[in-house]
């Protein structure tokens, strides 16, 4: 268990200077995520162009892992379509939880910096919170629009 694997430079940097931090108002989709164990609270805001994420922001407070993960997420999903985001979610899930994960980290870019989290089981939820929150935001958007 090496601390350097968890708090890689990319993560420390994204914790100190989170990217896309703030609100989108109005937002096409929005969801809140909460990790009661450690008190992490995140809100994700998404604007869509059809099927594609045009803009994404987050705010809230949390530990270094959850903040950095959310910051990295916003950079990674901008411009991606729903199926592409879904594929990324699955890759991240595998990366964070499976020791024998076969995910090709080279195609994950900076997100690969989170691979050290799986050595720290107590912290996996910190890293995955933003991904679940994004899912919730997109699902809510997928619900049938009211015709009034």
């Amino acid at each position, binding site marked *: *268990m*090496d*601390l350097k694997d*968890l*708090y890689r430079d990319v993560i*420390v940097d994204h*914790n*100190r200077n989170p990217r896309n931090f703030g609100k989108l108002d109005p937002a096409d989709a929005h969801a809140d995520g909460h990790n*009661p*164990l*450690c*008190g*992490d*609270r995140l809100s994700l805001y998404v604007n869509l162009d059809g099927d594609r994420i045009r803009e994404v922001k987050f705010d809230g*407070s*949390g*530990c*270094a*892992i959850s903040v950095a993960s959310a910051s990295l997420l916003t950079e990674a999903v901008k411009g991606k379509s729903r199926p592409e985001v879904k594929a990324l979610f699955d890759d991240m899930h595998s990366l964070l939880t499976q020791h024998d994960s076969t995910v090709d980290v080279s195609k994950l870019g900076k997100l690969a910096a989170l691979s050290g989290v799986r050595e*720290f089981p*107590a*912290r996996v939820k*910190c890293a995955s919170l933003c991904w679940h929150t994004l899912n919730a935001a997109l699902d809510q958007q997928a619900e049938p629009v009211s015709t009034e």
Partner: protein
Amino acid sequence: MSARPAPRPSSFDVAAIRRDFPILDQKINGKPLVYLDNAASSQRPQQVLDAITHYYTHDHANVHRGVHTLSQRATDAYEGTREIVRQFINARDTKEIIFVRGTTEAVNLVAQSFVRPKVGPGDEILISGLEHHANIVPWQLVCEQTGASLKVIPITQSGEVDFAAFEKLIGPRTKLLALAHVSNALGTVVPVEKFIAVARQHGVPVLLDGAQAVPHGKVDVRALGCDFYCFSSHKMVGPTGMGILYGRQALLEAMPPWQGGGDMILSVSFEKTTYNQLPWKFEAGTPNIAGTIGLGAAIRYLESIGLERIAAYEHELLVYATQRVQEIPGVRIIGTAPQKAAVVSFVMDGIHPHDIGTILDTEGVAIRTGHHCAMPVMDFFRIPATARASMSFYNTFEEVDALAAALEHTRKVLG
């Protein structure tokens, strides 16, 4: 870095004490274990482990059931512990000592059996803003069930229960005062005597949550004058799954049983069941016999060291740890009451408690991070969580140094 205080009085031989706790002698991530999560659960001395092993190896059978020798031995050891506990907290009678699963179950028992039958809309249950969830949620349940309402005495910036506010809140509607004796989140020792005196004037019964108080100093329930006192074995070097409800006999006599089953009855027929006497009326089913015997050994162990000496030594640890933690740049201690148990709860500028906990663990230092089951306390200070180092009499000044060094390291990694 500040100098260590003068050497310990040689009478407190912490090295010898540590040899009684086999679990302490191990490495975590290549570093000696520094266990500073005692408020969550303490460790067990060999004496307690031996008592449990001895019981299962030689004496186990069900209690109160058999004429055979083992059942008699088990019953004697089980009931013998009641007397040990009675003396330990200076209760009047062993009838006032109810064996339960822990503080949580003790509070729930009082909530359901004592408070629920006698409250309704317009009645109030008074607690403080310092409470552990175990002394909040059982009352919320009773309020939902009866229409009574929950009133909360505010706390102050130092983490004390606001006495002036309390005097305004207590009144004819108040049906119970339920108060922590010592706060688990902040370490505040609540001057409960003052509160109890006022409650007496109003004829309000008082329950004390002693989970954090019992292991760290002498508790005398009669001197306190409380009506109920709850505590957990696992926080006082005893086994998990075991706890005590002390209740004044007159109140316990008048309360209906809480759970039904074996042991809590004298006779059962489909027409009429006669309940057992105190204390067994509240002990339905096969109890935690091994846990009870282990608790007895734990009390014997604590008494062999001396509760006053434990309190004095832990206070020195607290003073030293407070000083060492405070001098780390960017650290703010949450909970600065003049009277505290050996708990240092703190936050660090720009570093989330969860990260502190992980980094400290890689240095072998075990602390608790989070809301400590006291979310309202966190809300009051507008923080999501704290890092909490909680010390016990087997901790050393060197371990406090290791904590401080690990916190400095944390600042380097993430600061």
